[in-house]
């Protein structure tokens, strides 16, 4: 019957209020506020959206609408090893789709999700400028070129602790 109850640490709320203040609590600055918040917290869970909505005096539905419209915003924390698969034209033509499919299968997650143990997250990228190496996969700062579905298991093994 009532809206979601939000739980946040006091210092996080203060930080969010500070960010909103930097942009004069202007409703028109929503995207910038969300950017800055994501930079600070790493992701934008419901709690953060609720505080931003209140501070900027925008409906929560609208904030959520913006977060889900732009692919650079995420509502789940990135994994310890964020995996990005390039789906730019060159990579796509060279089978990035199959590689992506294999990652999904092995990790049992969809794009935009993080594994239960918080280790890996999966996202897609537009061209990273390494078309010569297509298809390209990045894990954290490390780049893998000419990845084939068969190679996925070996790559993931590198991160087994």
């Amino acid at each position, binding site marked *: *019957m*009532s*809206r*979601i*109850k*939000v*739980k*946040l*640490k*006091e210092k996080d*709320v203060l930080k969010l209020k500070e960010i909103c203040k930097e942009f004069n609590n202007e409703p028109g600055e929503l995207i910038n506020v969300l950017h800055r918040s994501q930079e600070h917290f790493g992701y934008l869970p*419901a*709690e953060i*959206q*609720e*505080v931003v909505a*209140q501070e900027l005096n*925008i*409906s*929560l*539905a*609208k*904030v*959520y*609408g913006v977060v*889900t*419209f732009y692919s650079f915003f995420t509502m789940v924390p990135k994994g310890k090893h964020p995996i990005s698969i390039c789906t730019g034209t060159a990579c796509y033509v060279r089978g990035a789709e199959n590689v992506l499919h294999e990652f999904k299968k092995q990790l049992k997650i969809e794009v935009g999700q993080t594994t239960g143990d918080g280790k890996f997250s999966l996202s897609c990228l537009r061209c990273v400028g390494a078309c010569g190496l297509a298809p390209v996969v990045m894990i954290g700062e490390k780049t893998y070129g000419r990845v084939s579905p068969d190679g996925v298991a070996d790559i993931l093994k590198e991160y087994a602790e």
Partner: protein
Amino acid sequence: MEKIKVKIDNHTLEVEKGTSILNAAKAAGIYIPTLCHMEMKDIGIDHKPGGCRICSVEVSGRRNLAPACATETADGMEVNTHSMRVINARRTIMEFILSDHPKDCLICPKSGDCDLQNMAIKLGIRQIPGQEFAAMSTYKTDESPSIIRDLDKCIMCRRCETMCNDLQTVGALSAFNRGFMSAVGPAFQMDIEDSPCTFCGQCVAVCPTGALTEHDHTRDVINALANPKKTVIVQTAPAVRAALGEEFGMPAGTLVTGQMVTALRELGFHYIFDTDFAADLTIMEEGTEFLDRLTKFLNGDKEVKMPILTSCCPAWVNFFEHNFPEMKDIPSTARSPQQMFGSIAKTYFADKINVKREDLVVVSIMPCLAKKYEAQRDEFKVNGNPDVDIVLSTRELARLIKQANLNLANLPESDFDHPLGESTGAAVIFGVTGGVIEAATRTAYEIYTGKSLPRISFDQLRGFEGIRAASVDLNGFELKIGIAHGLGNARKLLEDIKAGRSEFHAIEIMSCPGGCIGGGGQPLHHNNTDILKARIQAIYSEDDKKVIRKSHENPYIIKLYEEFLGKPLSHKSHELLHTNYFDRSSKIEIS
């Protein structure tokens, strides 16, 4: 205003600078099809996202087709609204929209009155190429007591969003996601019942597809009527009689009170009663409460809360519970007429006919979707048994009548039953903006001044503007009255009260444009506000026809107090006819 000349098809005409091609064409009597566009200027709505492109026209000198709704005319402009290129483009656009739309028209709740379906018929669509490429969304259907949301049918016109955000300032809805997955809904895709939605139904009233519809309860009524163990009674709200005829092809503003009563009797209801009776009762309770507060206030009581706000609109109640919980002591505690009726029916009337509460089924016919939600609130149940069992909207009643093969236009007129069917002119005007406060003023005036009214109608309280202010002379005391319809307007008056700027003694609030006659359960007006105005006229004409036009003179109300309630605001009245409100705002918990 600067005038410019344009040529549309073969018509040359002068229009005001800034006029859209669509409106210029309309002025020349030329129809251009639209889907996403929605213009209702007199309630402040001008929605032209330019999204669907079905209104595409050819403008000479331009390479691309232009959306007529979102393109301004220019001096000397030549427009072709039906070249083969235009017709072809419209078809392709429509095929594209339909490739991402479910095909279960046969059993869709909007079927027969759906803008999208009508457009497909109009454009003669016979095939839908490209379906294999569309990744149709598969959202779960969200069923609340009032509204059903089937987002797979959403065509992203975003009309609902405009109604919820701009007209109502509720902000329950926003577009989310993108591409084939885009849809409109509450934050985090929560169920609408968990959102700040008020169930005003204004989004449903404008959705061009089956994405947003009322929760249909006609089956429940059929089952109740078919059950020999049940006594089934019905109450009809004032606004229903002024709109039901539209569903049977009658012009807007046709009053069908008598035919409606006959239809209900033919359907097999055991007693046909009138919510208007309960509206008279509301005036007795709310009016007395108001005079009580006013007298205290005038005697310098600092505790008493002013102004008093009406409480008969359940969407409005939901609105302040969510958005202004700190002010929940200000509205009258009087229940809505629907709930007063249910409460009296299941006590006083049930005793009279010697039927157990559990065996009496109270059905109400309402112009409203919020009443469906209201009826299932826990405060309005006794041992789990609701005072009002089933609520149908005007549209659903029309469906039921059609299922019984009755043609409203051909039915003879008949009268409501006694005792809960007798009402006054004061009660019928509850259906329009300004009506509740006018009805209350008629009674308050006579009780306060001890004199009878020289003239019964208060023209200063009538009108269509979103916020109105008027004053009434009560024996030298100037009673200041505020009126708002539409929740955005209500919000302004509330902000004033909160800031201590409000001068009013009493305020009437209705959530829907025009009052209940513009409710979310009424026949669809397809963005034509003239229909709302015609219904308002119909309601006032019913008031004029009534012999008794003041609530406190209703003989059956007088009898109800004598036999059962005692007097207004008595212990029994409080128990059966009043309520209390809850804080339903969201709070940020800090851990």
